[in-house]
């Protein structure tokens, strides 16, 4: 099983590679296009990796390729800010990716467990929210297994507004 760890600022080249891989694999999931990502300079990737790896961030990656020469998984937890101090803090799960050869082998489970744990422990979030394409029943089943439920809310899928993105949410311990 690939090791799950935090992204470091020095991982910018790995981040760039996995990002281009994600955008190639599921271009519909991102408003950023593959071409746009390719146009980013090394300096921009360094800034991006630095922003995603600050102490208060939760960016999880999984080392792949045996020698850690690539990333085979990614998940990121962010918070909506500001939030109503009267309500429990809500975090959002984004940038979910598991390389095809690692799917169905438990890596996604491990990443998600760690994401939930970090959201609760480090960000003090009371719930974690995510968006999933209405036709992606496999992802919905995966999230359901981890305690996520559809909230009834949905929004148009930005790249194809005839489709909806369903909001799923899970309370955190």
């Amino acid at each position, binding site marked *: 099983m690939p090791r799950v760890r935090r992204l470091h600022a020095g991982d910018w080249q790995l981040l760039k590679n996995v990002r281009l891989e994600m955008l190639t694999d599921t271009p519909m999931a991102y408003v950023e296009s593959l071409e746009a990502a390719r146009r*980013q300079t090394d300096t921009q990737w360094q*800034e991006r990796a630095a*922003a995603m790896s600050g102490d208060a961030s939760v960016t999880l990656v999984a080392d792949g390729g045996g020698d850690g020469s690539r990333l085979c998984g990614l998940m990121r937890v962010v918070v909506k800010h500001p939030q109503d101090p009267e309500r429990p803090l809500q975090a959002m799960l984004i940038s979910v990716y598991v390389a095809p050869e690692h799917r169905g082998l438990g890596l996604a489970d491990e990443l998600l467990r760690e994401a939930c744990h970090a959201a609760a422990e480090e960000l003090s979030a009371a719930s974690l929210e995510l968006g999933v394409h209405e036709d992606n029943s496999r992802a919905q089943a995966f999230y359901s297994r981890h305690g996520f439920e559809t909230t009834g809310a949905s929004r148009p899928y930005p790249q194809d507004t005839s489709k909806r993105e369903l909001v799923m949410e899970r309370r955190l311990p």
Partner: protein
Amino acid sequence: MENLFSHPESEPESSQGGGNDLEPLIVSVVVPSNVSHAFQGFTDHPHLWWPLEEESVYGAGSHVEFEENLILETAEDGRTSVWGTIDDWQPPLSFHASWYPAGTPLWSTEIRVVFSAVQGGTEVRLIHDGWEGAEDPAASRASYAEGWPRVLQRYARFMGGAVA
């Protein structure tokens, strides 16, 4: 900086001024690029031109990007702030997003940014609507009436445009 686009003290007349004038706020600039490049400049590299030192939650040194369907700011220490959620993405012509104003997590506004060819380049027009849900709608609208021109002028400068 604590609040995105919150400049209440610098716009003292806003709270009472107009009162019920909650029409969509429309701000535009013309940049000397074709539509495709104008859209790319806006959405590929917002962190290169957005005036984060003035118009952000975490201030200078933070990073803003279009990530998945979010417009997301990340502070130097990694804290994050979701500014908006994109729900219509029509490159290179327009995008539409729910936009969460500072300090008001219980309501969202709507922005649409439209890129259209005009003589001399591309007009980038931002339409910001949905003020009614705010605690003080006129003040919210007024703070954005002040903030958006600054943001778009910075973008126009980045794109090589002359700024009036």
